[in-house]
């Protein structure tokens, strides 16, 4: 195949990475990109920074304004793909327009889940997922005094931080026993929690919103399942996300929590690829298929999909995805937090757990090891060389020779060179980061 019709659904992390890798190989094929959101390409991760006025609207841009032109991509913003026809090789949009494809990338991401008992049509109920969401919250900020955030994950805590900076009294309602429960353990959460309280954000763990109180269509408060009544004009729901798979509901493209993919990022149709928050991938630390709905994962999957989409002959060697890892980095009021993989193993007896806890310095480190391989870690306060540890996770390196040094503040790439020798040094010299 020389000239291909490539269709990409979505205009965010995974799709951008795919476009860049396709165009590095193939300048001729046509690329049609369809995106439900109208707003020019931006980074969703920056929405809380925008909400807190740390950056302006232009600061959200992920690439320069002429990106799609430079990449020779025909972008159709503001169109929603309603149907995918794998056999007929075409997609149909809500406005009736249709596009046929030789190769298709589904990079539709995910959406915030809203529990059934929360009436989302009420004024004052928000999620934080798109520019439009952030704009709507911003408009409501002036005049608002109190906010409730439901969910204490990365998005919830960042939203709480932003609202607090905007001068609101913020109350965070969390189902689990700690903030950031998917990132860090109880001890780490306690350190971060102190800083959260210092900033006058109140956190209630082990609870849920059972009822939303409203007047004339406006939120006026919530009642929690332990009977507390909290006044608020703003309720932000940040509990979890759900893969945007609606467009393939009438197809036999396989899905579980997300669209099932193989290491080439292909679905069960070899010319249909999926990447990013919509895709289920193999997690190398848990060794299970899951959706790691994270920016870096989306970019890496988009790159693999792009490389394989650009491959013209079936004989060539496909690019393979090594697998995803939960990886989070957060800078919370000056306390940096990084975590990878399995941080709170269910059955601790199967793991070696290294810990260094210095709460008085806001420092906490934990490394979870099985079979001499790092399966996960938490770094609070001291994050230098976090990536060196991450490379040990990714490369499944045997850490037995320097197990006693992993937690040290001075652990660095030199330790890896000592034990990995010439091959490691050679990768370094040549700038091969993977």
């Amino acid at each position: 195949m020389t000239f291909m019709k490539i269709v990409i659904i979505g205009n965010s992390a995974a799709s951008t990475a795919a476009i860049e890798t396709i165009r590095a190989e193939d300048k001729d094929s046509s690329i049609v990109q369809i995106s439900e959101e109208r707003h020019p390409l931006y980074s969703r991760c920056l929405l809380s920074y925008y909400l807190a006025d740390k950056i302006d609207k232009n600061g959200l841009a992920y690439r320069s304004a002429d990106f799609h032109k430079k990449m020779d991509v025909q972008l159709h913003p503001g169109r929603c793909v309603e149907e995918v026809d794998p056999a007929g090789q075409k997609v149909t949009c809500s406005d009736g327009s249709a596009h046929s494809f030789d190769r298709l990338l589904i990079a539709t991401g995910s959406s915030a889940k809203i529990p059934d008992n929360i009436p989302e049509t009420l004024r004052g109920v928000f999620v934080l997922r798109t520019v439009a969401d952030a704009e709507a919250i911003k408009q409501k900020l002036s005049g608002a005094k109190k906010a409730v955030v439901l969910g204490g994950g990365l998005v919830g805590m960042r939203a709480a931080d932003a609202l607090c900076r905007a001068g609101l009294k913020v109350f965070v309602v969390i189902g689990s026993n700690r903030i950031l429960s998917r990132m860090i353990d109880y001890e780490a959460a306690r350190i971060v929690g102190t800083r959260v309280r210092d900033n006058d954000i109140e956190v209630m763990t082990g609870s849920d919103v059972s009822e939303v109180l409203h007047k004339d269509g406006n939120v006026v408060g919530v009642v929690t399942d332990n009977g507390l009544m909290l006044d608020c004009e703003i309720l932000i729901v940040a509990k979890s996300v759900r893969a945007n798979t609606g467009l393939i509901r009438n197809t036999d493209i396989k899905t579980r929590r997300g669209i099932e993919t193989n290491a080439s990022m292909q679905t069960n149709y070899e010319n249909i690829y999926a990447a990013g928050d919509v895709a289920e991938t193999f997690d190398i630390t848990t060794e299970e298929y899951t959706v790691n709905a994270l920016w870096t994962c989306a970019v890496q999957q988009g790159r693999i999909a792009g490389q394989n989409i650009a491959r013209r002959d079936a004989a060539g060697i496909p690019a393979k995805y090594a697998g995803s890892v939960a990886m989070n980095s957060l800078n919370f009021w000056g306390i940096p937090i990084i975590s990878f993989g399995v941080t709170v193993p269910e059955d601790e007896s199967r793991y070696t757990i290294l810990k260094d806890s210095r709460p008085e310095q806001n420092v906490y480190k934990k490394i979870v090891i099985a079979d001499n391989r790092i399966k996960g870690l938490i770094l609070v306060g001291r994050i230098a060389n976090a990536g060196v540890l991450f490379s040990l996770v990714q490369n499944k390196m045997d850490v037995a020779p320097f197990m006693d040094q992993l937690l040290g503040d001075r652990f660095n790439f030199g330790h890896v060179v000592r034990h990995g020798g010439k091959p490691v040094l050679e990768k370094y010299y040549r700038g091969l980061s993977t």
Partner: protein
Amino acid sequence: MKRIYCIVEKCLACRSCEIACAVAHSGVERVEDAVKIRPLPKHRIRVESIGDRNTPQGIRSIALQCRHCEDPLCAQACITGGISRDPETGAIVNNPDKCVACWSCIMVCPFGVIVRYEDCRRAVKCDHCADRDEPACVEACPTRAILYCEAEDAPIPVE
């Protein structure tokens, strides 16, 4: 593309490169002025030990800095799009105006050569001293252990 290489056999671990690097990025010219700046200017090159008396080759060290990787993980992880390849020099650059200090780049850099800047508001790393003829570390190295050259002219890694 030209990169900075450190010849392990020649490195004395004197850290002259670290000082030169910090000064070169401090905004002032002389060391004696740079040391007055608070917090102290930060270096983007770091000398680390890769062997001691107990390792077969004995005491050894290397000056580590950004490799301006072929497929840079930092650029893949950067949530702002601020880390990218300079189309002219090929170097990986971090746009200070875009950086929001989320430390995603530090999270993934396998060589640990991206650091938090003095005021902890942005991430910094080696920029090959874009505004100088030769990187400051290369100039400062008393044993000429640090080279700035194409890969073909680079020293082969030691055993």
